[in-house]
């Protein structure tokens, strides 16, 4: 039986693929904001660009954490999510986010404040490591689920990391244009182009891999390329998020049109957020069936 001949189940008593509906747009927003915020902070602290550090910090601490809290059924117990770092990626993420909130804040103290050099250095190291962790751990949160084949691959954390890097680079470039800081713009611009091409190739490889894997993974790949999510995926993720961003960025580099940076960041972030959302929405549980049903 080909995967196409099994329909999406309309309810839990029906037979078929069952779409993931537990994690919604709030979790999608949290994953998206964690990726771009962590990457923006990491790039900015490495290049000593304070506006980027502040924005990246706020995106993670205010944006990501708020989205997570709004999603939880019992937000007042959020601290309990840190109880099992030995086995849960969510718990590890809570620790990383907590460390980032404290160490990142120390890094953002005004320079006039007499923070001992050793503490500042330690805070910078911890903030960089935790920001890097925040960029990709959501990929592991998703890929540890054996239930959803499309997520259960080592490629997913890499994809999440690469997209976080792209989002962070684009935001950093935009901020530099807005603040008139031109140093490192050529390097970051080149990195952005490489990431755009790299993400396109990785996404293509991901889909090829999934198209040859389990029936549920193949069905998700079909939904993304030809089915329910094809317009959104091909239109917003590929055309707007990658191709339009690459085109606009190239035009901006060649023609020196700084006003394009807003369009560039909007198109890239649209693709980035849409990717997270379609990954969440197109995840399918495999049909539960007797061997004789297959």
């Amino acid at each position: 039986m080909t995967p196409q001949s099994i329909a999406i189940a309309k309810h839990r008593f029906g037979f078929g693929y069952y779409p993931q509906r537990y994690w919604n747009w709030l979790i999608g927003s949290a994953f998206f904001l964690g990726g771009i915020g962590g990457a923006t902070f990491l790039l900015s602290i490495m290049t000593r660009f304070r506006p980027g550090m502040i924005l990246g910090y706020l995106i993670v601490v205010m944006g990501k954490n708020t989205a997570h809290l709004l999603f939880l059924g019992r937000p007042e117990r959020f601290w309990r999510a840190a109880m099992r770092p030995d086995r849960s990626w969510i718990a590890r993420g809570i620790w990383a986010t907590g460390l980032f909130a404290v160490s990142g804040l120390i890094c953002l103290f005004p320079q006039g404040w007499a923070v001992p050099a050793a503490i500042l250095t330690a805070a910078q190291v911890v903030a960089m490591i935790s920001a890097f962790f925040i960029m990709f751990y959501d990929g592991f949160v998703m890929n540890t689920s054996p239930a959803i084949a499309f997520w259960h691959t080592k490629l997913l954390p890499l994809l999440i990391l690469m997209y976080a890097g792209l989002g962070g680079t684009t935001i950093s470039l935009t901020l530099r244009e807005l603040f008139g800081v031109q140093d490192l713009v050529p390097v970051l611009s080149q990195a952005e182009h490489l990431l755009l091409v790299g993400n396109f190739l990785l996404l293509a490889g991901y889909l090829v891999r999934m198209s040859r894997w389990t029936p549920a993974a193949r069905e998700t790949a079909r939904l993304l390329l030809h089915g329910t999510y094809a317009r959104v995926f091909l239109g917003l993720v590929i055309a707007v998020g990658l191709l339009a961003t690459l085109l606009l960025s190239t035009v901006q580099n060649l023609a020196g049109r700084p006003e394009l940076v807003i369009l560039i960041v909007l198109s890239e972030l649209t693709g980035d957020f849409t990717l997270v959302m379609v990954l969440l929405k197109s995840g399918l549980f495999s049909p539960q069936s007797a061997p004789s049903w297959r």
Partner: protein
Amino acid sequence: MARLGMVIDLRRCIGCNACTLACKQENGTPEDIHFARVVTREVGTYPATKRTFLPVLCNHCEDAPCAEACPSGATWIREDGIVMVDREKCIGCRACAVACPYMNRHFIARGLLENGYSADGLSPFEAVKFAEFEEGTMTKCTLCAHRIDAGLLPACVVTCPTDARIFGDWDDPSGKLQKLVDGRGGWALLPECKTKPKVYYLDD
């Protein structure tokens, strides 16, 4: 140490959903939450069609991915192998639901316990039963742990009119469950997920 589980004989199952209803009555689950249910599939081409049935419930897996995914330790496994949820530790992150390949974790959304099946608020039955649940947390089949602790069988097992459900201990020296599975080529759902379920099926 026991490893409680079940074997379900599909040749005996008639798809009557008595297990579904017995579970609803025993556990008093809110609307749209079914710990036991019967997946139904129509096969064949008209006029040669038939319906086939697959009763499902929590598989109380030995390598339970829901327990692995739970960040708060709310999901725990009893000594007899029953996978439980401590609602007071649950934060409602739904990671367990995403991790369970069998879709047997259920989220109690806000407002779900305020109204029962009728529009007039909770019935006396619902008022008693809903006190066992908490909004914003996860719930799941406990294999009727409260009945097992009282020396009774799970409600779905007792109710099945065709005795399709055989409850027992996989570590039982007499090997009732293991013999059935070995003798009739029993199988578990979604073996590719490597969860080591304790619910097996027979269809030969």
